[in-house]
């Protein structure tokens, strides 16, 4: 995403490429995350389309088995770690400070470091396609297959690349937690925070607790591959890797979907013109999902032979996750109930999210029925299930968020007509692609197979799925074009185009670099709404006449004792985060190509040390030297 020059000059933002590289502004970092994730989304989509082309006919010959295996591995890795997590990070970066009335995140330079480490790690992972082959052991990297072929560096790219992405995510999560716990505006108690920010907190904790487990597993895999370790292969236990992986991998599913649930929890109240139904229940069901997410990892391992006691326990625990999820869905319906539902684009995608997520959730309950999972496991039924959850749920939710907040990012509205095309094509294409996979799975088609024989009755539904996948691809071309075109041609949004409820709508679009001229004092959930509306005797909202939404900060008597612009301490730009991240990824490349790579590890270490020293010695704020 490019800077809009006039606007940035007007808001005192420096411009140019260098200013983006050295930026520590949470909004810019958010946009960088979003733009990168969108580009990688098209990469992952391309990978998926190639996979679908190969499967259109039995005994397909478009891809070799080797290429197919690399592509499905990278499709999973890219979508989960490189698209959906960063797109969630984009929303969190941009909106956590705005939602809680803060001027930036707690550690702005660490925030920049997270982004650059993420970006460089992804470049490293994708570069493996050109440097001897991409990871081909599945995104789940089951040992001992993943530790078997030491001749190839492919799974070393996986072990190091995923490790570095994990470091970037842990840093970002710690940053978000610190921000939410220490930088909330006066009166912004935890139970007044927007649900999106709540879900961001839950997700950050999930990542902080789950990623280190994955990290340990990845190090063990790396040792097995390079230093003769026997953790999983040799005399080791292959199931140990599965436990470590799914102890991360299952919470990861909630990491991907909870922010989307947070987003639609913002959208439903706005376009129903009612508060969120049962706010505390929505928040606590999100926390409950997070907790329970750590207790169900072995439902990915029902066929691995854990024994009937473990299988029964995990089966029942898994079923129970449906309960808090159901609570959220009922509350969203309760929010619309009795409201004035406006079919704006964000609202359409949000309703799509709920509908498709229910389908994915129900097939999820079927998996928790262990005896039936013995059949469904690793069949296309599972592929259908998690695409309904992660694409029908996750991606629809994030796209809803993009339509909802685009005006805040750019000051302009997305085009309605293009958006309608996007929504209907995506809905159609999505269901054409993934609904048939339920049937294929129940008919015995196994996942991750690059070809299938004729005569098993799988041809027709595979063709339908391929057609559907291309319709999804086309729908996203509409989206991309819309994002580009509307930046210049879109209708000017103003501060508060949706008559919003939360603090980000009280400031200009795009927001000034310091976000809030005066830090707001918060008295309600949805504080901004209550500055615009009172309630009459029947409980209906009544507009408060003299406040016109948007210029609010100047008119309310909220931030009297707060700092004014002249003594605001905004962090200064810094290139040390980029240097540190670059050095670490340099080390990563070295580790992939051991033993010769030790040289690169050494050089990378020096670069990282330069970055870290420079970082710790430079002054923090623009005017710190004058203080």
């Amino acid at each position, binding site marked *: 995403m490019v800077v809009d020059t006039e606007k940035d000059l007007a808001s005192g933002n420096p411009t140019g490429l260098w200013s983006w590289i050295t930026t520590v502004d949470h909004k810019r970092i958010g946009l960088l995350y979003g733009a990168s994730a969108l580009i990688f989304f098209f990469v992952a989509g391309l990978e998926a389309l190639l996979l679908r082309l190969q499967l259109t006919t039995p005994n397909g010959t478009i891809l070799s088995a080797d290429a197919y295996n690399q592509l499905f591995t990278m499709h999973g890795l890219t979508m989960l770690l490189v698209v959906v997590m960063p797109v969630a990070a984009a929303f969190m970066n941009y909106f956590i400070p705005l939602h809680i009335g803060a001027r930036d995140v707690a550690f702005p330079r660490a925030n920049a470091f997270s982004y650059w480490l993420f970006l460089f790690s992804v470049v490293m992972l994708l570069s493996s396609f050109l440097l001897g082959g991409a990871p081909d052991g599945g995104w789940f990297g089951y040992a001992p297959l993943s530790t078997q072929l030491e001749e190839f560096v492919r799974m070393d790219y996986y072990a190091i690349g995923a490790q570095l992405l994990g470091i970037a995510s842990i840093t970002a999560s710690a940053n978000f937690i610190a921000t939410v716990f220490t930088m909330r505006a006066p009166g912004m108690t935890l139970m007044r925070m927007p649900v999106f920010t709540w879900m961001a907190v839950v997700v950050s904790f999930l990542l902080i607790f789950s990623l280190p487990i994955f990290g340990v597993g990845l190090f063990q895999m790396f040792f097995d591959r390079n230093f003769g370790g026997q953790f999983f292969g040799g005399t080791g236990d292959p199931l140990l890797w599965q436990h470590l992986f799914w102890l991360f991998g299952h919470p990861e599913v909630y990491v991907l979907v909870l922010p989307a649930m947070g987003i639609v929890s913002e959208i439903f109240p706005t376009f129903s013109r*009612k508060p969120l139904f049962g706010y505390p229940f929505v928040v606590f069901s999100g926390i409950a999902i997070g907790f329970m997410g750590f207790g169900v990892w072995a439902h990915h391992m029902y066929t691995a032979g854990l024994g009937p006691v473990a*299988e029964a326990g995990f089966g029942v625990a898994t079923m129970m996750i*449906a309960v808090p999820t159901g*609570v959220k869905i009922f509350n969203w*319906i309760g929010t619309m109930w009795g409201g004035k539902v406006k079919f704006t684009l964000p609202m359409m995608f949000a*309703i799509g999210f709920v509908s498709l997520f*229910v389908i994915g959730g129900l097939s999820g309950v079927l998996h928790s029925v262990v005896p039936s999972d013995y059949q469904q496991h690793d069949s296309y039924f599972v592929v259908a299930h998690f695409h309904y959850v992660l694409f029908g749920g996750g991606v629809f939710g994030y796209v809803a968020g993009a339509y909802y907040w685009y005006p805040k990012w750019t000051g302009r509205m997305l085009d309605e007509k293009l958006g309608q095309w996007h929504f209907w094509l995506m809905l159609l294409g999505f269901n054409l692609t993934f609904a048939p996979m339920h049937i294929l799975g129940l008919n015995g088609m196994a996942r991750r197979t690059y070809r299938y024989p004729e005569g098993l009755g799988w041809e027709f539904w595979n063709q339908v799925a391929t057609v559907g996948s291309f319709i999804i691809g086309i729908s996203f071309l509409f989206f991309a074009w819309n994002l580009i075109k509307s930046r210049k041609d879109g209708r000017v949004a103003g501060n508060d185009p949706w008559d919003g409820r939360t603090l980000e709508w009280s400031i200009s679009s795009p927001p000034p670099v310091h976000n809030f001229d005066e830090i707001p004092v918060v008295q309600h959930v949805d504080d901004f709404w209550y500055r615009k509306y009172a309630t009459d005797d029947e409980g209906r909202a009544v507009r408060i006449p003299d406040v016109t939404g948007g210029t609010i900060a100047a008119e309310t008597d909220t931030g009297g004792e707060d700092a004014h612009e002249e003594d605001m301490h905004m962090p200064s730009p810094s290139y040390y985060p980029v240097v540190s991240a670059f050095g670490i990824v340099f080390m990563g490349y070295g580790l992939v190509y051991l033993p010769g790579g030790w040289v690169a590890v050494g050089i990378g270490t020096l670069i990282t040390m330069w970055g870290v020293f420079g970082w710790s010695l430079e002054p923090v704020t623009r005017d710190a030297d004058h203080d």
Partner: protein
Amino acid sequence: MVFVIVQTAIIYVIIRFRARKGDDTEPVQSHGNTKLEILWTIIPVVILASIGYPIVKGIFDIRAIADGPDVLQVQVTGHQWWWEFEYIDLTDETGRTLVTANELVIPEDVEVNLTMTSADVIHSFWVPILAGKRDVVPNRVSNMTLIADSATPPDAPHPGQCAEYCGLAHADIRLKVHVRTQADFDAWVDGQLTPAAIPTTETEASGYETFNITCAACHNATVAEDGGTTDLGPVRAIEVDGVTFISSLAPNLTNFGERTTFGAGTFDNTAEHLAEWLADPSSIKPMRPELNDIPEGRILGMPNFNLSSDEISNLIALLEGWD
């Protein structure tokens, strides 16, 4: 059912409560209802608990290991990328067990207990028509029960497929399960335990020579000789958790001619397909023979031995004659 109810509720809500043109009134600002919240928490819990009991019972039933004199015991070893079966209770006079590959033959109405392990990476044994899948894990023993009874569709052989991603040729590690009447099964067992004699016709004898020079480095096959039997190739075994599994370098080719497929259930067993295979195996099934290390027991596929077309046709004559 649940989907229909929830989806109906969503559609009802978005139609009933849509913003109508010319209606500028604001909705009542309700914040929630604790009774409703409790209700829609408890109802799903009750529904789930009620399906929970049969599920738990089902798990224990399926996971029970079949045992007893009437149970057919078969040991399964998963390989990249083929299946090896050993009928441990079926032996000839010398004590040699019945070993075959990729096509499992079972009698109808008899419980079959599969005792499984893997020689390399994780595989998963899956014949959808007969049972759910079960992972086949190196360093571990797993069990599953198969039975083909009146509830099983009669159109055997039933196709199966490895269900755990096991590397390059994961799509081509398939298998077939043949279901026979008890009498036919007994006849099949007799046939398997009575191997072919050393061939005497010119083509087959020439093929036999090639087999001994080239194929027998990895493939075993049993032939009748001097009133007894002889193994032409290596016989290897691994021990996992106190159970001894046969773990050959390549599929046992005794009585190969009567199998309906080869290449782990991937190709129909015809002279034409065999000729393609023998000319360059990796061209029709993806494998990595260049990484083979026979002393270490690491086999990732059959190399191209650059056989001449005569050698190929003689070998085919030999193999198809073994039935």
